[in-house]
């Protein structure tokens, strides 16, 4: 999707995008620059997120978490409520941690949480 001039191509891409859930679309536009979501896929700038919900925070082997993240998240388990809070403003949950992300729209957060729930 490179150009605004190729409207038919854009429309086609939009149709393809509709085949995915809103959460998956959001994850693709918002998260894949840093995170991978497939089972066994390597870490990127951020850790692989397959099966995140239900896991202990910072339990992802092979990824180096920031001290600020570890301090704030130690002992917590990822559930829907924590993930929603995290997506609302990562810096409010773990001040100074590496990830800067905020999503003010509760519907978009819910879609992302739904998508994360589907990954297992």
């Amino acid at each position, binding site marked *: 999707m*490179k150009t*605004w001039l190729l409207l038919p191509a854009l429309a086609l891409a939009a149709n393809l995008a509709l085949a995915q859930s809103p959460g998956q679309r959001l994850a693709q536009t918002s998260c894949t620059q840093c995170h991978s979501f497939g089972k066994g896929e390597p870490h990127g700038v951020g850790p692989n997120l397959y099966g995140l919900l239900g896991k202990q925070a910072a339990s992802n082997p*092979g990824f180096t978490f920031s001290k600020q993240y570890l301090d704030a998240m130690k002992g917590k388990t990822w559930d829907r409520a924590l993930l929603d809070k995290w997506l609302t403003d990562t810096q409010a949950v773990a001040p100074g941690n590496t990830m800067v992300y905020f999503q003010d729209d509760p519907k978009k957060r819910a879609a992302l949480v739904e998508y994360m729930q589907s990954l297992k």
Partner: protein
Amino acid sequence: MADRIRSDAGAASRRRFFQQAGAGSAAVAAATLGLATQEAEAATAFDGSYDVVVCGSGCGGLASALFARWQGNSAVILEKAGSIGGTTSKAAFWYWVPNNEAMKKAGIADPKPDFLKYVARLTNPQGYDAAHPRFGLTPWEYEMCSAFYDSASPAVELLAAKGALPYRHVADVPDYFAELPEDKAPKGRVLVPKDAIPSMSDGGLVAVRTMSTKARQEGIPIRTGMRVIKVLQDKSGRVIGVEAKDELDATVRLRAKKAVIFATGGFTHNVELRKNFLNGPIYGGCAAPSNEGDFVQIAGPLGAQLRNMNYAWTCPIPLEKAIAKDGSISGMFSVAGDSMLFVNKYGQRNVNEKLQYNELAQTFFEWDGAKAEYPNLVRIAVWDQRSQQHSASAEYGRLIVPPGTDDRHVIKGATLAELARAIDERMAKYAGATGGAKLAPDFLPNLQAAVARFNQFAKTGKDLDFRRGERVVELLFNGDVKEETGRTNPTMWPLADAGPYYAALVVAGTLDTKGGPKTDTNGRVLDGADKPIPGLYGVGNCVASASGRAYWAGGATLGPIIAFAYRAANAAHAEGRSAA
């Protein structure tokens, strides 16, 4: 803060009203009132209004918005991607600041004429003339470089004083051409975000965090998922706002009372622009995936003239990650390993592997006019167990990575013969992206000869072919190597006679491109007659860099970005608010 963009009930109901009333009625009303349609729409159909609308949330956008806000302007930042920071969040964020305060405190002199000679020598090598009043630079290049020298330090001081970007001075980092006689301050110009880790590789994440936190404290809304598609002008041609699409394809129009500032990055991920403008076979790069050349396409219809489209901030990249469009890809800032060399598909070693990344990448562009091919289109890095063990690192885009990290690009073999077979297979997999490049029939004997010759040089510490390790910048990026007492050249060590061996396919890529609409020294976008398009500004990699082909030093990307964000915001502030 005035308007929220999408949650603004008034704007939403206004939109609904127009939808219900039918598309025709606004035009009818306009005609009745004797207004041009465009003007009437401009007066009524905006979803929010700010003094300054900034497009892009990397360093250029964040800094522009902050500088404008600190002068009392309202500002909003629109980011196309779902998360903020753009390419900046992937950068180490060194920033090159001539004559900075830390240098002054440390007693390092950085006189302006010498600084300008250094950048002129590198920017326009074929026109350089130390005796010329502009050192051979064009008037535009000279003014831009001069403005950078003047404004970079005040800009970074303001960002630091306000707590948006505290820095630390890394006095021991050399410029990339520290040996040139023109460089009178070869060390001292590089700053990094204060809280970056000691290796300084996470500076961009730190900067995005501190600058965006400050922006939100200052009441600057940052709206993600907002793809700006059009600049709106009034009848006189003055830019009065933008039209954007949000993630769910709804149209949002924002009014800019003073200025629209673009800081949306280059065209690294626009294959068409890359192919038509860049000066060599480039396979993408580590710019944010959203860097698709939007501003080139948006500013074109407004009559902006383009400059420096042929150059990019170049860097070698692993072929696999480029083809996979891996969003986490990093440029290979540091080609690590001492028992490591590069060969081409003929098994020939024909480059100094430790050449600084921008220069190294451009050696991949060499064209063989007799064979009608790029002989170095894909180079193969080869290393042994020693470098694997002692030089592995997940930082700075290194090919040699530790266990547990992403090593999809690594090819392995117990012997050089086995390695060559594995390289051959891997290259066959990517033939569709390399014009069918494959290993020459005599690759293996040539590789063995190249290793033997390299090993001879490594024993003496003198690379008689390519002088590897002789320049200070090559040591800067050498990375970790095994300690060896008494060795003179830490960039070289003989490869082991026995395996295992490792390899990776390397191609040329960009950090981002550096051409686009030409601006004046205050970031105003210029039309074909060199006249500013009123109200339209550009900063950073989305506009033309005056550096030409040159990569003056580490941070020569972000230093000018901060300086021109400052100058653009100051000029935008001085604009009168246009009538809504």
